[in-house]
């Protein structure tokens, strides 16, 4: 049997709950959007049920630990193919075990999840480093990203702490949503039409007057601190893989 869900973490947990409630064996749990029609299988869709989702999380927490639920959530954000089943596997193992399995690296499921979490952590760290804000006329500091994984939900804490007194917006163009902080709290937002959004300079008409100048100053700073006698591109690329260059105004030839 194949179960589909709406693509949210709660949705996945609801589907997992359903397998226990109906005592069914499933071949696959998969986001609805990813399901490829097949002649032989007719998937059953499970609607998201907050209550069920919560019960699954509490179950995992009781059997294993809070760390385990965090691990599952972070891994879920990877959006990797098969991640739903991996999470399902972990939960099954956790339910069947009498001890906390979160750090049982000898287990293949657990090991794989930890490896994925590490990748997520690295991406989060890169976003902390490579997000570049542009200041708009309304004094909103604005940034566009396109991370490898869906890490936006993990970014607000860092940026709230760093910029408590300025309004900022970080928008994921790949996934079409953003987080907006209004000096009080962070909210999710979606633009109806985000085709105009780019990493590069926003339209001059919406930018604060001084913004282009600061970008130029930063680029000129960056160019100047380089020591040509010590050039080492291999090391450079190791730190800033090419796919991240688009974020960095200092890496652009011109504006």
């Amino acid at each position, binding site marked *: 049997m194949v179960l589909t869900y709406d693509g949210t973490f709660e949705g996945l947990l609801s589907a997992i709950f359903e397998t226990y409630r109906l005592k069914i064996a499933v071949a696959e749990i998969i986001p609805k959007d990813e399901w490829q029609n097949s002649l032989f299988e007719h998937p059953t869709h499970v609607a998201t049920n907050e209550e069920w989702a919560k019960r699954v999380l509490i179950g995992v927490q009781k059997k294993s630990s809070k760390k385990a639920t965090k691990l599952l959530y972070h891994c879920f954000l990877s959006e990797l193919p098969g991640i739903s089943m991996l999470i399902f596997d972990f939960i099954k193992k956790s339910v069947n075990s009498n001890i906390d399995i979160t750090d049982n690296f000898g287990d293949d499921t657990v090991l794989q999840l930890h490896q994925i979490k590490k990748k997520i952590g690295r991406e989060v760290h890169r976003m902390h*480093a490579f997000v570049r804000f542009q200041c708009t006329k309304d004094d909103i500091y604005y940034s566009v990203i396109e991370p490898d994984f869906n890490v936006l939900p993990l970014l607000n804490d860092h940026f709230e*702490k*760093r910029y408590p007194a300025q309004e900022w917006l970080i928008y994921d163009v790949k996934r079409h949503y953003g987080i907006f902080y209004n000096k009080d709290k962070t909210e999710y937002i979606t633009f109806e039409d985000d085709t105009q959004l780019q990493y590069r300079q926003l339209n001059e008409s919406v930018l604060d007057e*001084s913004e282009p100048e*600061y970008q130029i100053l930063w680029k000129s*700073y960056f160019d*100047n601190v380089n020591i040509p006698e010590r*050039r080492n591109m291999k090391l*450079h690329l190791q*730190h800033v893989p090419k796919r991240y260059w688009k974020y960095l105004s200092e890496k652009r030839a011109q504006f």
Partner: protein
Amino acid sequence: MNERVKEKLEILSDAAKYDVSCSSSGSNRKNTKGGLGNSNGVGICHSYTEDGRCVSLLKILLTNHCIFDCAYCVSRRSNDVKRAAFTVQEVVDLTINFYRRNYIEGLFLSSGIFKDVDYTMERLVRIAKELRTKHKFNGYIHLKAIPGASDELIHEAGLYADRLSVNLEIPSEMSLKKVAPEKNYKEVYKPMNYLTGAIQGFKEEKTAIRSTPKFAPAGQSTQMVIGATPENDLTVLNLADNLYQQQQLKRVYYSGYVPISSDNRVPTLKQPPVIRENRLYQADWLMRFYEFKVDEIVNEVHPELDLELDPKAAYALRNPHLFPIDVNNATYHEILRVPGVGVRSAKKIVSARRHGKLRFDNLKKIGVVLKRARFFITCADKEFNLLGKDPLVIRQIFTAPSRQKAGFNQLSLFG
């Protein structure tokens, strides 16, 4: 902001870039209400230069005007370069605006000496003070404490900065006098001693009274230029060791001399001594994290670091009688000395062996680099004991054919 600021930034970042201490770590400032920024232990690298160095701070000089004439320095009085000076306001604006855009973790401000030492120091302090008080800036601030500055100014600097550094610049006073006639060790040690005392004092007070303000919470550091004068590694490392022990410095930076100067008091090098610099950093790590005494790394018999071999491997090959070490019985201190075993692996070995004797496979999982370590250890299932062979043979295996990467001071090279 205008063209002039851009030009100043070009001149004054260019002149500051040879100072290598750029780390923004070690401090802990929480954001305050309505404030800007925080610093939380490990600094973030927001970009990397093409030479692979981390860009985390806005590193500039307040001015490159200078009344001194140090041969190794581009800003020296007798050098014909474009001069510029920022105003206090310009530095504050640049810092705030770069920080708000997430370009940087904070400011690293140094300066040439215009007029006199205190006149210059006073301005550095004023910038830090404005950032902290007027702009509630909680990002990282590293100020240069200028040799010879008054205790009062140094004290004030400590109240606003996260880290202060006084640069020794040249690893012996005799050489220093030759290349920097206006400088002497006494003037360098004066602010350094003051800071050592004050940092210690504030720390003690802090444990007694929690509301004690912060004083240079990320400590103090210094820098030495390597290769501009004839000191050997023994002198350099002895000096560094002394600074760690006596002055409780957080970091000593070694800066391979970049041949920027046409001054005939310093040698003309084809290239900066990057490999030597890297070896010095490795030796420095051995002293700080691997429980090595300085004379185990360099001594009268071996006054120079081996350029072909990292200093830990060099130590092991010089002391074959100490190996192999049985990972199941040896002390933590002994395990740390095995080439291919890092601090983390050593700790894991010590805790893992409580659950049972460690075998070859366990060591692999723990992260020991067996390619190197195998010559120096025994474990439950394998007696390598290959050191019975000639250390010279091992040396050959270690140095050929894949050459160590040079010019890389991230110290991933003990593996």
